[in-house]
């Protein structure tokens, strides 16, 4: 990763003189993140939790915990929210998604928070299929191949997912205070892939409207819209950068790799989901290889 991060001593979250140029709000109306300009750079505020100062080029981040907020919470916010945003300012492509390695290639899962992308990645990883990231899907073109870069080797899960998938086999990172998710470190019991893998499948997670796993192709235009919706973007007003970002996503959308994956959200269904995904990814890989023979 190419972001330099330092955590500073805690400080009160002082009122900011100007109006936020962007914000993230939960569906229930709770304010999650405010985006302010600060000189040439940015101030990202997570109310009652922390401030992060991001340099104009997205290469340097400083975290300031609010009084009483533990360091793991701030580190967690940095890894899952702020670092992807900083990378986007460097022109990198980061999506809200998880990814695993199947047959030496990458299969990614895009979805909003709560759609099950971390649970699905963890479900693969606890069964020996290595995961590349549980959120913050970082993509990079190398020659003509789009590669998934591995993230930090941890998976965050809600408590019910932990009980169902992980049990007591795995080392746990310190819990964070703003969510009932905990962060698990990779290790025995959770397999992690620490090398880049070519992106071969990108599954958009559906709304659990089915009784058995289904996989349906997406049109390129549908894929482009989903890629836009699931992008991390720090500065939504930097037009040149937005245009470049849209170009990058259009190039990505033209790949024949997009499918909508839907399945019932029960832990009992996960083995069938894994089997369907693995079979689909391997079939497609074989047919792609045959095209080049």
């Amino acid at each position, binding site marked *: 990763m190419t972001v330099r991060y330092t955590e500073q001593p805690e400080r009160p979250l002082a009122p900011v003189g100007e109006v936020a140029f962007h914000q993230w709000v939960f569906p229930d109306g709770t304010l999650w993140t405010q985006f302010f300009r600060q000189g040439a750079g940015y101030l990202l505020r997570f109310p009652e939790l922390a401030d992060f100062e991001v340099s104009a080029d997205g290469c340097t981040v400083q975290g300031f915990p609010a009084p009483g907020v533990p360091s793991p919470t701030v580190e967690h916010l940095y890894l899952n929210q702020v670092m992807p945003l900083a990378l986007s300012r460097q022109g990198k492509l980061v999506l809200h998604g998880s990814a695993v390695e199947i047959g030496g290639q990458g299969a990614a899962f895009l979805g909003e928070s709560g759609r099950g992308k971390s649970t699905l990645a963890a479900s693969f990883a606890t069964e020996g299929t290595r995961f590349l990231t549980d959120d913050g899907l970082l993509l990079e073109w190398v020659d003509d191949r789009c590669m998934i870069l591995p993230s930090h080797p941890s998976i965050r899960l809600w408590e019910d997912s932990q009980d169902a998938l992980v049990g007591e086999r795995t080392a746990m990172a310190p819990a964070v205070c703003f969510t009932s998710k905990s962060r698990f470190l990779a290790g025995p019991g959770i397999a992690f892939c620490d090398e880049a893998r070519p992106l071969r499948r990108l599954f958009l997670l559906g709304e659990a409207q089915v009784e058995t796993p289904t996989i349906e192709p997406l049109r390129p*235009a549908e894929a482009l819209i989903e890629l836009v919706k699931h992008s991390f973007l720090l500065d939504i*007003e930097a037009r040149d950068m937005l245009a470049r970002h*849209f170009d990058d996503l259009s190039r990505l959308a033209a790949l024949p790799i997009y499918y909508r994956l839907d399945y019932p959200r029960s832990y009992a269904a996960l083995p069938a989901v894994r089997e369907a995904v693995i079979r689909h990814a391997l079939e497609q890989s074989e047919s792609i290889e045959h095209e080049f023979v």
Partner: protein
Amino acid sequence: MNLSDKVSIPTQVMARTVGDETVILDLASGTYFGLDPVGARIWGLMGEGATLAEICATMLDEYEVEREQLEADVLRLAAELAERGLIGPA
């Protein structure tokens, strides 16, 4: 909106073509809209500053279509795009 109107495309609104469809996107608001090739042609002519009537005239040369139908389609598309803030008055 009338056929004599010209429209403008806000600077933060962009269009890209993938496959045989075009996606228009307002990256600032997150609003998006998909167009088939005919819709994409109308969008392109809007961006060149033509009035809706001039767009219809050009399209009549290029496509097998009744004028009445075409004018209704162009006006409807312009209204939908305007409603989403993807075009504005020139």
